[in-house]
């Protein structure tokens, strides 16, 4: 079966100041139907940009190259109408801050039904019925009353459920969730993740789930993609993400996460400062902060290498994998 989503050598440049600066470099990955890919990485590493580029929702003045293929259709050459169709029915997007993402002026009911009524020409009563049903599914009590309320009358967690409901109403094949819980408090976070995960699974929708939290990423996804300075540095099965990541950056992420089981004096930080994508030089973007860097790392940018089920962008990938418990796989260039 062909992949639902294929992202191939995606690069994006944005106008920053007077010049176009790269924010994404040669990002490649695929997603099967119903599969969940978690994308992790520090702030500014290009996670949001990757998600937006999938539906061509880039800031004005952006330039991009490479190929995004959704269900066999090239998104880059889609017409305006095809693009709207793609966004309306095939790919749903959930944003980080529901308070900013949902128009404060309109009622919750209008927000949920506007796409159905205006674009799909559904009768208002039917759209309303569906909205009530889906609000119930995402765990909102008294949906009829909520539909008449305005966003400021709902809590952040409830609003994010509304956002999820709006995506479910569109019945897409793919959900792009861009840090959907970062703006919520900790207890609500878990509930919202659970609601999203369950309802997605029931409907067999694929998902790209963006988060800062490697542990959450591993828990919710089938595979984890790690981004650094606009590069996709490692893609690995979720089960391995917390066990034996190969890329030094992923390992560093793993070590810097706060552990509840172990009491620590201080959370170890990754030394150095995260690099903005446009600051990357000729070598490996992580080399200045990498404790395993060798001479070659500064001089030559590594190509992604496929090792078993993984893809790693590191000169020492094979060596590092061999050092782990797994048998050494045949290293091949992805492209």
């Amino acid at each position, binding site marked *: 079966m062909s992949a639902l989503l294929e992202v191939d050598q995606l690069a994006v440049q944005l106008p920053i100041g007077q010049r176009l600066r790269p924010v994404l470099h040669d990002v490649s990955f695929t997603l099967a139907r119903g599969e969940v890919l978690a994308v992790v990485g520090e702030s500014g590493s290009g996670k949001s940009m990757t998600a937006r580029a999938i539906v061509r929702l880039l800031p004005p003045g952006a330039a991009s190259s490479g190929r995004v293929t959704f269900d066999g259709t090239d998104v880059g050459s889609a017409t305006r109408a095809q693009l709207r169709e793609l966004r309306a029915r095939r790919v749903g997007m959930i*944003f980080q801050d529901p308070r*900013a*993402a*949902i*128009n*404060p002026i309109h*009622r919750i009911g209008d927000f949920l039904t506007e*796409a159905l009524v*205006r674009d799909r020409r559904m009768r208002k009563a039917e759209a309303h019925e569906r909205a009530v049903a889906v609000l119930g599914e995402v765990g909102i009590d008294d949906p009829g009353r909520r539909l008449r309320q305005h966003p400021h009358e709902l809590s952040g967690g409830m609003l994010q459920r509304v956002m999820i409901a*709006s995506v479910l109403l569109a019945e897409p094949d793919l959900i792009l969730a861009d840090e959907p819980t970062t703006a919520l408090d900790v207890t609500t976070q878990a509930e919202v993740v659970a609601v999203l995960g369950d309802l997605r699974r029931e409907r067999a929708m694929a998902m790209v789930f963006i988060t800062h939290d490697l542990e959450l990423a591993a828990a919710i996804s089938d595979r984890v993609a790690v981004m650094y300075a606009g590069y996709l540095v490692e893609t690995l099965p979720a089960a391995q993400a917390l066990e034996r990541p190969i890329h030094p950056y992923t390992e560093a992420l793993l070590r810097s996460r706060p552990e509840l089981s172990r009491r620590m004096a201080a959370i170890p930080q990754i030394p150095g400062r995260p690099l903005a994508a446009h600051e990357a030089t000729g070598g490996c973007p992580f080399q200045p902060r990498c404790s395993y860097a060798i001479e070659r790392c500064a001089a030559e940018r590594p190509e992604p290498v496929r090792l078993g089920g993984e893809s790693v962008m590191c000169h020492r990938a094979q060596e590092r994998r061999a050092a782990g418990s797994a048998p050494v796989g045949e290293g091949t260039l992805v492209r």
Partner: protein
Amino acid sequence: MTRYLGRQLASMIVLLLLSSIVIYGSMYLAPGSADAVLFGNHTVLPAVRKAVDAQYHLGRPFFVQYWDWLTAALHGNFGLSIALRTPVSQRLSAAAPTTIFLVVYASILITVAGIGLGVLSALGGRKLDGAIMALTNVGTSVPTFVAAIILIEVFALDLHWFPVLGAGSGFFGRLQHLTLPAFALAAWAVAYLTRVTRTSMRDELRGEHVATARARGLSESVVIRRHVFRNALLPIVTVSGLQVAGLIAGTIIVEQAFGLNGLGQLLLSAVEQKDFATVQAVSLVLVAAFVIVNTLVDIAYTMLDPRIRLGAREA
């Protein structure tokens, strides 16, 4: 909502009462009081004096006088014009149509042109935006009386498209006569509202809820109407209202420049003639119009923004 409207109405009435007291009181206290204007240095017979006092509500405690004046005014009776010996209400009703026509005409110009140009500027390309912004630069730097002189010079004296003076009669006569005055009156406000509209639209365009609307595949026209313009409307309505209310003062200048016998002109000549009954009446009408427009804007604003409605309910 009803409670909110009630409160707005109550505060409007209080404001109107207060301003009417100020208007009446300032005439009462002003040097060159009614006595002086009416009698000058003549000595008057007590009988005449009494008759005049009754006519102009003089010679009794301030608030009694004020109350008589106000209740009469509310019945459309503003007393006799001291200068012309005709009822003030006659002078008012002769002057009002011109001013009302002028203000309504200018208000339509302001809202249609100001909002229209602002939207074009925000959504249009760089060139269109640049051109409109250049226009608004001119518009906001030319004072109303200069605009009036330029318009008369170009469109009345050189091109003969419009008459120079007079208010015209009948709808089309007025339309023709009052076009230049309305443009002069509206020019500054159009330019200003254009800028406000543009800024507000641009701010909303950057908003994340607009990205959401686009990400949901809504058509661009729905995105612009429902998620950009509708949200941008809040500051636009406030500023439009202030500008329209400001026109009420602006008419004084424009009526002067174009020789129109409107309320502004009436006010000026009444002041010159020390015709205090007329000054009071015109002031009262102008201030009332101002207060009412402001109240309407407040109400419109509240209807547009659900977040304010809640605040009102909680208060």
